[in-house]
C-alpha cells in the first residue's frame, strides 16, 4: 500500500519515524528505573504516537481514498515503512534509549523548527506542535547524557557503548533522496542536509561535556527511507500489527 501523492509520501515517512520511536519508548512502560522516570518516558512516547497520528491523518487525507491513519500504521509491511533506521533499533538499556533520544532530539528540534515554515500549511501546523514537544524532550535527554556520562564508571561505560552503537545510524538523518529534494525545492520539505553542521557542533559539545569520546566514523548504515530496514523492524511490526492482521477489517 503506497500513495502517489508526494506530500502524502513525505508525511507517511515522518509518521513512520514517530510511530516506530513511540513504539520503542512505550516498551518502557512499567520498566523505568524509577516511577517518576517511567511516567516521563510514557509522556514522550505519547507525544510521538500523537505526532504519528497527525502525520498519518494528513497522509490519509491527501491520498484521496478512504484510507485511515490505522491503515497506514497497521496494514503495510516492512518494505513500505519509510522510517529512519535509528528509530527501530531495540530499546536496549536506559543508556541506549537516552542516547538515541538525545541524538534524535537534536535533529528533531532543528527539523521541526524548519518544517514550521513549510509552504504546506498542515505540515507547518503539525511541526508547530512537535517543536514544542521536542524542545522538552531535548532538555530531558541532554540532561541524561550529562548525568550518565558524568555519573558512575558503569553509567559512563554504558553510555559510551550506546553512542558507539548508534553513531553509524546518524548520518542517515541528513540524507536526501529524490522525493525530498523535489519537495524541499518547493519549500514543502525540510532540506535535512543543511541541518548536519549545526547538529554536529551541538552533539559534539554535549558528548565532550559528558566525557564521551567521539566514535570512529568508520561505518554507517542507511536505507530506511527506501524501505531497506534492519531485521528488527519486522519483529516490531508483528507485535504492532498483530490485532489488525489476526482480525482484519473490524472496528475496535
Amino acid at each position: 500500500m503506497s500513495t502517489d501523492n508526494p506530500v502524502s509520501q513525505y508525511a507517511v515517512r515522518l509518521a513512520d519515524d514517530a510511530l516506530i520511536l513511540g513504539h520503542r519508548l512505550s516498551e518502557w512502560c512499567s520498566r523505568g528505573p524509577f516511577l517518576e522516570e517511567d511516567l516521563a518516558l510514557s509522556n514522550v512516547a505519547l507525544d510521538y504516537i500523537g505526532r504519528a497520528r497527525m502525520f498519518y491523518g494528513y497522509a490519509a487525507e491527501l491520498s484521496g481514498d478512504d484510507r485511515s491513519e490505522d491503515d497506514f500504521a497497521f496494514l503495510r509491511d516492512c518494505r513500505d515503512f519509510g522510517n529512519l533506521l535509528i528509530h527501530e533499533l531495540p530499546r536496549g538499556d536506559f543508556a541506549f534509549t537516552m542516547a538515541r533520544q538525545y541524538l534524535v532530539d537534536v535533529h528533531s528540534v532543528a527539523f521541526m523548527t524548519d518544517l514550521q515554515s513549510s509552504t504546506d500549511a498542515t505540515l507547518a501546523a503539525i511541526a508547530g506542535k512537535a517543536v514544542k514537544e521536542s524542545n522538552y524532550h531535548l532538555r530531558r535527554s541532554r540532561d541524561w547524557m550529562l548525568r550518565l556520562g558524568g555519573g558512575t564508571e558503569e553509567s559512563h561505560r554504558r553510555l559510551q557503548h550506546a553512542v558507539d552503537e548508534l553513531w553509524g545510524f546518524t548520518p542517515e538523518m541528513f540524507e536526501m533522496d529524490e522525493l525530498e529534494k523535489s519537495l524541499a525545492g518547493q519549500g514543502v520539505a525540510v532540506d535535512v542536509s543543511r541541518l548536519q553542521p549545526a547538529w554536529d557542533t551541538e552533539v559534539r559539545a554535549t558528548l565532550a561535556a559528558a566525557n564521551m569520546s567521539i566514535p570512529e566514523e568508520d561505518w554507517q548504515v542507511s536505507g530506511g527511507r527506501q524501505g531497506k530496514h534492519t531485521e528488527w523492524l519486522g519483529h516490531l511490526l508483528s507485535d504492532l500489527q498483530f490485532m489488525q492482521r489476526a482480525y482484519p477489517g473490524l472496528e475496535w
Partner: protein
Amino acid sequence: MTDNLSDQQLEQRETEFQQRIDAEEKIEPKDWMPEKYRQNLIRQMSQHAHSEVIGMQPEGNWITRAPTLHRKAILLAKVQDEGGHGLYLYSAAETLGISREELIASLHSGSAKYASIFNYPTLSWADIGAIGWLVDGAAICNQVSLQRTSYGPYSRGMVRICKEESFHQRQGYHIMMTLARGSAEQKEMAQDALNRFWWPSLMMFGPHDADSVHSAQSMKWKIKRQSNDELRQKFVDQSVKQAEVIELELPDPDLKWNEERGHYDFGEIDWEEFKRSMTGGGPCSRQRLAHNIQAHDDGAWVREAMRAYESKKREAKDQAVA
C-alpha cells in the same frame, strides 16, 4: 511519637484522637496518632500503591499490540496514570515516616500485598476492556468511598485519583461495547473476558466483613468508610445494568434481583481461589513480582549514576564557593 507518654496520658490522647475522628476532622501528618493507626494506614496505603504499580503490567501487556492508534494512545495514557497513582499513594504514605525504598522493599520481599486481580493474565484485547470496565469500576467504588478517609494526605490523594480515573472505566466499557456490537468473534472475545474477570473483580473488595481481619478497626478509625460487602453490593448492582445494555452476560447463575433487599443477590465467591491468588499462587503472581524486581534492579545503576552526578556537581559548587 508515643515514646514519653505515661499510660494515662496515652489513653487520654487516644480518646481525644477518636473524638477528632468521630467529629469527621481529618488527621494530618504532624498530628499525634496511635501507632496502630499509623501501621494500619501504611499497610492499606502501600497495598493500594503497590496495586497501582503492579496493575500497570497486565494492561501494559497490550500497549504494543493495541488494535488502533487511538486505542494505543488511550491505553498508554491510562497505564501511565496508574503509575502516577502509585506515585501519589507512595508520597502520601511517606508522610507517615516511611520511605519509598522501604515500601518497595516490602513489596519485593513479599511481605506487602497488592490486589490479587493483577495476578490474572490478559489473554486477549477484550481483557483490556474488561479490566477498565470491571477492575477500574470496582476500584473506583472503593476510591470514591476513600475520598472521605480520615487521613488527610490519603484523602486528598484519592480526590485527585478519582478525578483522573473517571475516564478509565469509561474507556474500558467503550472497548467492551464496541466488541459486543462487533463480529461474532469479537462478541465471543468480550464474553470470554467478562467470564474470566467477573469473579476476580468481586474478590477485589476483600473478604466478607465478618472474616476481614482489619475491617472493624479501620472502620472505627474511618480509614475505611464503607465495608467490603457494602461496596461489593454497590458494584454488583451497577454492573448488572451495564452488562445488559451491551448484551453481555454476567457469569453467575445465582444473580437475581431481590425486591425485599432492593439489591441483587449473587453467588458465593470461591474464597479458596482468592486465598491462593493472594498468597502468590495466582497464575501470574511470580511473573508480576519478578517483572517489578527486574525493572527496579535494572534501574539501580541509573539511580546510582544520578546520585553520583549530583553529588559531584554539589562538591564542585562548594569548592567554587570556598
